[in-house]
């Protein structure tokens, strides 16, 4: 068949597809309800025409036109769109906790990498007043001691802290903590070394600070402050670490897949964890800025709430969406 005949014969189908695509690429509100059901059929026919035009070496202009049309059809037809709030709900209730449970071994590994140094340094700093200087600079130590000194009413615990300060800290926690979570994850691509260092470093610092301040006797200011949000924050750090270690696992033990393929599969799962960790960190930032910092609440109440929060985090991660993993 000559090109001209070919064009005349099929032009109507191409135009129909073009109109359908124009319609479908508009936002749903502005569609005029014309016949969109024919998309798959029209698209398949244009695909067939494209293959013919290529095979018969029709002119480049014609092949390009059909190619672009097929490309548009392809991206509209295979676009994955669903109700976003439904997906958010599924994500929170099913995808995130079940993905975490599927990678439970790495999660426990990350937890150990974080808590063991924390406990070790905490113990050391509790027993030896000067040990903290091996991991932090004197300046940092002084700053930290000043912050939690019951003798002054600085940031964190003052009775009449302004709401605007709360907001400042809320912003700071989001910017800083979630950023740390993301970096912990991303640096896992260096065969896990980055994640490993991030976990150890955070564990060491947090453990040292806790041990040192307890030893100094700042129990009444430090522990009520950190107890509330710790449930979300520390768990989220471990989960970010898990996600980073998943990247490392894909690169180190790809199994029967190529490394690239393993990385793609693992990264898709890991990013679910990191999104969940970001959500946890968001909650943590909220609690830290508006609840933990509230100096008017009695420590007993804070500890009670903290226990409740820890319990809910543990229950959520271990039970939510159980049995629906495949859903």
């Amino acid at each position, binding site marked *: 068949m000559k090109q001209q005949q070919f064009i005349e014969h099929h032009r109507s189908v191409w135009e129909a597809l073009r109109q359908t695509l124009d319609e479908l690429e508009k936002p749903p509100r502005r569609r005029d309800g014309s016949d969109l059901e024919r998309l798959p059929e029209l698209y398949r026919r244009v695909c067939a025409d494209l293959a013919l035009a290529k095979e018969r070496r029709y002119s*480049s202009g014609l092949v390009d036109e059909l190619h672009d049309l097929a490309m548009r059809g392809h991206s509209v037809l295979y676009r994955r769109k669903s109700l976003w709030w439904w997906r958010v*709900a599924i994500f929170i*209730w099913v995808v995130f906790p079940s993905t975490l449970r599927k990678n439970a071994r790495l999660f426990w590994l990350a937890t150990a990498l974080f808590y063991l140094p924390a406990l070790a340094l905490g113990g050391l700093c509790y027993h030896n007043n000067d040990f903290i200087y091996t991991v932090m600079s004197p300046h940092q130590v002084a700053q930290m001691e000043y912050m939690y000194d019951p003798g002054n009413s600085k940031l964190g615990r003052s009775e009449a802290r*302004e*709401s*605007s300060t*709360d*907001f400042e800290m809320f912003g700071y926690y989001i910017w800083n903590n979630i950023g740390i979570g993301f970096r912990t994850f991303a640096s896992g691509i260096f065969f896990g070394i980055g994640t490993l260092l991030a976990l150890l470093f955070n564990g060491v610092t947090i453990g040292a600070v806790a041990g040192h301040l307890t030893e100094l006797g700042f129990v009444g200011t430090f522990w009520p402050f950190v107890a509330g949000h710790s449930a979300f924050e520390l768990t989220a750090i471990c989960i970010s670490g898990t996600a980073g270690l998943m990247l490392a696992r894909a690169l180190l033990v790809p199994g029967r897949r190529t490394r690239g393929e393993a990385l793609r599969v693992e990264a898709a799962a890991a990013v679910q964890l990191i999104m969940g960790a970001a959500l946890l960190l968001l909650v943590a930032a909220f609690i830290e800025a508006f609840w933990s910092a509230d100096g008017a609440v009695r420590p007993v109440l804070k500890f009670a709430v903290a226990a409740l929060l820890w319990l809910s985090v543990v229950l959520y991660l271990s039970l939510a969406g159980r049995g629906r993993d495949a*859903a």
Partner: protein
Amino acid sequence: MQLEQMAANVRYRTSWEGVDLGFVIARQWFMPLWGLWWLTALPITLLAVLLLHRSPLLVGLALWWCKPLYEPMLLFWLSRRLFGETLSWRELAGQWRTVLLPRLLANLSLWRLGGNRSLFLPVSQLERLHGAQRRKRIKVLGGGQSAGIWLTLVGANFEMIFGLGLLLLLLYLLPSQLLPEHPWLISGGDRPLLIWLANGFWLLAMSVIAPFYVAGGFALYLTRRSQLEAWDLELPFRHMAPRFRAARAAALVCCALLFMGLVPCGGARAAESGTPTVQAARSAADVTTGIGTEQVRSAIKQVLADPAFGKEKTEHYWKYIGAKRKPDEKKRLEPFAWIAAVAEVLKYLLWVAAAFALGWLLMYVAQLRAWLPRRRTTRAAPIATTLFGLPITPESLPDDVVGAIHALVEAGQLRAALSLLYRATLVRLMHDYHLRIPESATEGECQRLVRSQRSEPESAFFSQLTQAWTRCAYGHVMPTPANIALLTDSWRRYYEGGRDD
């Protein structure tokens, strides 16, 4: 040149894609290009170090300034390689004068900072144009696109990034005790080690980027020629030309013979028809070497004279059109009391939002609980009423299945009998043994389901039955009455017996 040996697809594309094609080409032949770069760069480096070793900063600057010196060789090699010809070292060494010298002084002085260096390099090296002709030519090639300049600018940045990246990497990796006490003291005469290091890394970065830069410019040049002159069509045209001309010449010869009966003229024509091959080969070589025949030259002139080339020009520039009215309220707002109030309100709003989010989540949890299990059990397997177009309901069966089958066999309707037997089996499986067969299942899938959930002999029977049925339904191979009787007996054993119990 053989068209089939053209190693890159020079087609009509945008200027940006032209640059990208160059990067692909450079990746393909990175090692030889890289080596070639060092071939000219290494002597210069040694010379610069020898002469200027007192001030390492100047060495770096000199090496950078001399970049136009290292690039022509790469282009020379690449322009041959792209058409399937690999130059030997001997050929390269023999040609260095003609490759390196054209416009070298200009490129090293006034035009060193010209943005389109790698795009214009082929004009002087491959087309061998000078003076006004060259200026016209580069105006046409360089006009209407900005990819050439951006290639140069971005390329320079890439070098910086690589150089700096390598340096930083080294500093990261060095144990902190080994670092000099003040590594940033760059100008200190006693500790220029860091500058030497930086120079080295920079040179390395330059050598890595240079192949990409030269190939990018060359591919952009080819792309521009495709855009402006349909150069990509010229290649196949040249390839076809001898055949076209020969055919037409042969036609002319026939005419001549017919009209005049002059034989010698035909010989002359035939001889002439050979020449285009030679000519095409030469002009094809022109594409790579750039030596134009007089004819091509004049044609180029003709093209260049055309107003469509190099006349239209749109220039964008920023012009100061005077300041807009200056904002009056220059005074800085001080934190007023209302801010605290706003913050307070926002805080409560956030609490409310958090409460809403929690409530919403709980609502969905409730919904999910209601949804998911149902989806699992009821949606996954609704009881089918038809399978492969056969009605599968208890109502569609006669009360006495075995009797009905016998009657059908007696009447010679073997197909109907087998169909009834098959349907009856499926109905029993689904309704008495609660086998969940989805409506979409095929015969094979039914077989697999039965095998996984029913006893060994029963599934063996079902396999036989299925086989008989599919052969009958799709293969039109009729079962024998004896066969049906056998199957019916088995059926009664499995399903009628089960019911009586």
